[in-house]
């Protein structure tokens, strides 16, 4: 039997055909069954989650006012702080760090009744595309445990794909929700920049980071977004305005869909392209008008991204100096202690990005690299602006390939970076996008990416939801169930 979605669990819990305690027992049993092979979690809160489920049932029995997610188990990525719990960001630097406050998104989930069951594995401080850069071991893809789940939210994706939890939070700076969702056959939503508060999210590249969801359906993504989104006085970049609303649709009549030709360039796996082309044809069948569009600057987006990100990383990582929190490696004097602590406790990808960012921001190179990358960012944004003058949403592949074997790209950072080629421009432009499963290539899941103008999550998820209803992925069960 396929694992239940958030919406199905909601219904079962409301109608009391299932108790929160039973749900949690099944969740924890499923985690226990698959965790040794998949390693999606850094920590599971067995006792706390069991206790919270009992409290939820007691409240329901007395007719207490329960939130919309009452009793629903949800996992969070290890880069969101949660008071009283460890939050390590996948890094040795914060191996023993205990949060002193709670991230707004996590707080909102709990206020809605959700039960946080644990924190999921990730690339160190969200830097990576395979979840191999974690200080706490690699996460494996439930479809083939010799392959990566994608990253950096690979633990959250694997936990949902393996049926351990119906939903998880992730963060997406250049594809870190959408790409692992694509590689594990689930739905990954990266909301508009500013839609969800970043308060309590460990900053990687602050102008690009955004919290989002990993779920099995578009409907579940909408359910969670309606809870975690909204202005937050603790994050000055959150957008004010109307709350997120969503309604499903029965046809795509009246919707114009653009296919950016630059996203079908060389380097894409032929079977992946075939699945994406079939999905585009399916959108046409559902009533959408399909037309080709051009986003010329998008071919430079990846280069701009790998300047902007390291530059912001080099600033954001400065806080990890071994003084106020984390571990300390003591050396002769203060400056030597900074360097020794950071050198010993950051992993190789973090160190690489700090050094590249330092280069891009250093005297003499600033104009040629950092400033120029920000000018290219403007070009990328204007391309999207003109495309959205003609179409309502864009359809592209999420990743040029299916999940690759563990270790294959690990020692070659540039090749790893190229796996983000279809996702980074969305972050550079601050737009929302969702990856939805569109079939299998080489026996592994392929993701279709829907990109929309700012605050168009409702349209994106309604279109993705209708596509999912009409085109269930076929053999959607990962091997881990076999």
């Amino acid at each position: 039997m396929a694992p239940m979605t958030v919406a199905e669990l909601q219904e079962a819990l409301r109608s009391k055909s299932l108790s929160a305690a039973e749900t949690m027992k099944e969740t924890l049993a499923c985690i226990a069954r698959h965790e040794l092979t998949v390693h999606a979690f850094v920590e599971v809160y067995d006792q706390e989650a069991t206790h919270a489920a009992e409290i939820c049932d007691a409240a329901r029995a007395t007719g207490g006012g329960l939130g919309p997610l009452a009793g629903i188990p949800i996992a969070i990525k290890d880069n969101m702080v949660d008071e009283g719990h460890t939050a390590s960001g996948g890094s040795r630097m914060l191996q023993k760090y205990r949060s002193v406050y709670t991230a707004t998104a996590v707080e909102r989930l709990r206020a809605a009744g959700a039960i946080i069951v644990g924190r999921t594995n990730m690339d160190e401080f969200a830097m990576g595309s395979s979840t191999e850069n974690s200080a706490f071991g690699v996460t494996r893809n439930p479809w083939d445990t010799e392959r990566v789940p994608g990253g950096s939210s690979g633990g959250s994706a694997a936990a949902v794909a393996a049926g351990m939890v119906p939903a998880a939070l992730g963060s997406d700076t250049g594809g870190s929700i959408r790409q692992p969702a694509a590689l594990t056959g689930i739905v990954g939503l990266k909301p508009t920049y500013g839609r969800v508060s970043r308060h309590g999210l460990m900053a990687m590249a602050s102008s690009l980071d955004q919290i989002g969801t990993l779920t099995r359906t578009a409907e579940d993504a909408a359910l969670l977004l309606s809870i975690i989104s909204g202005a937050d006085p603790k994050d000055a970049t959150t957008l004010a305005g109307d709350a997120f609303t969503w309604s499903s649709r029965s046809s795509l009549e009246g919707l114009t869909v653009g296919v950016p030709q630059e996203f079908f360039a060389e380097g894409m796996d032929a079977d992946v392209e075939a699945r994406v082309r079939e999905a585009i044809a399916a959108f046409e069948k559902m009533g959408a008008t399909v037309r080709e569009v051009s986003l010329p600057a998008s071919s430079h987006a990846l280069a701009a991204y790998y300047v902007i990100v390291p530059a912001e990383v080099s600033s954001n990582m400065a806080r990890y100096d071994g003084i106020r929190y984390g571990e300390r490696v003591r050396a002769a004097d203060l400056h030597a202690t900074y360097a020794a602590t950071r050198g010993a406790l950051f992993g190789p990808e973090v160190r690489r990005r700090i050094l590249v960012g330092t280069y891009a921001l250093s005297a003499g190179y600033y104009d040629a690299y950092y400033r120029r990358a920000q000018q290219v960012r403007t070009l990328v944004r204007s391309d999207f602006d003109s495309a959205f003058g003609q179409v309502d949403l864009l359809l592209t592949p999420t990743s040029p390939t299916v999940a690759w074997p563990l270790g294959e790209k690990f020692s070659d950072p540039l090749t790893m970076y190229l796996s983000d080629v279809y996702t980074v421009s969305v972050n550079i432009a601050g737009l929302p996008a969702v990856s939805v499963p569109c079939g299998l290539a080489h026996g592994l899941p392929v993701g279709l990416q829907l990109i929309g103008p700012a605050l168009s999550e409702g349209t994106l998820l309604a279109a993705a939801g209708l596509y999912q209803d009409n085109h269930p992925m076929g053999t959607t069960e990962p091997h881990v169930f076999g």
Partner: protein
Amino acid sequence: MKLSSEELDHLAKLARLDVPVAEREMLQEQIGAIIGYVASLQQIDVTGVDPTFRGVELGQRLREDKPEVSDAETRAALLQAAPEKSGDYVKAQAALQHKEKGVAGRV
């Protein structure tokens, strides 16, 4: 284009980051390759294009200049996180050298 040994030392110094000797060669290669790749930005015509520095342009937003009330518990938790403490203080190391007896060394 491999990064020179001197360039790596300069970056590591600016970044306050020790680079293990065994990784130097590899880092010079990898960082050189990454910088070589992003150097393709030089070929794009950006004449008259304004840079975009932020994720979203919302103007300056300031909260009221009012201290937030904190409690002893939060303070204790914050102190707890520090790797070295001295009483109610986070313990660092001297930022100035004590080579000679002088003002810098006095408390």
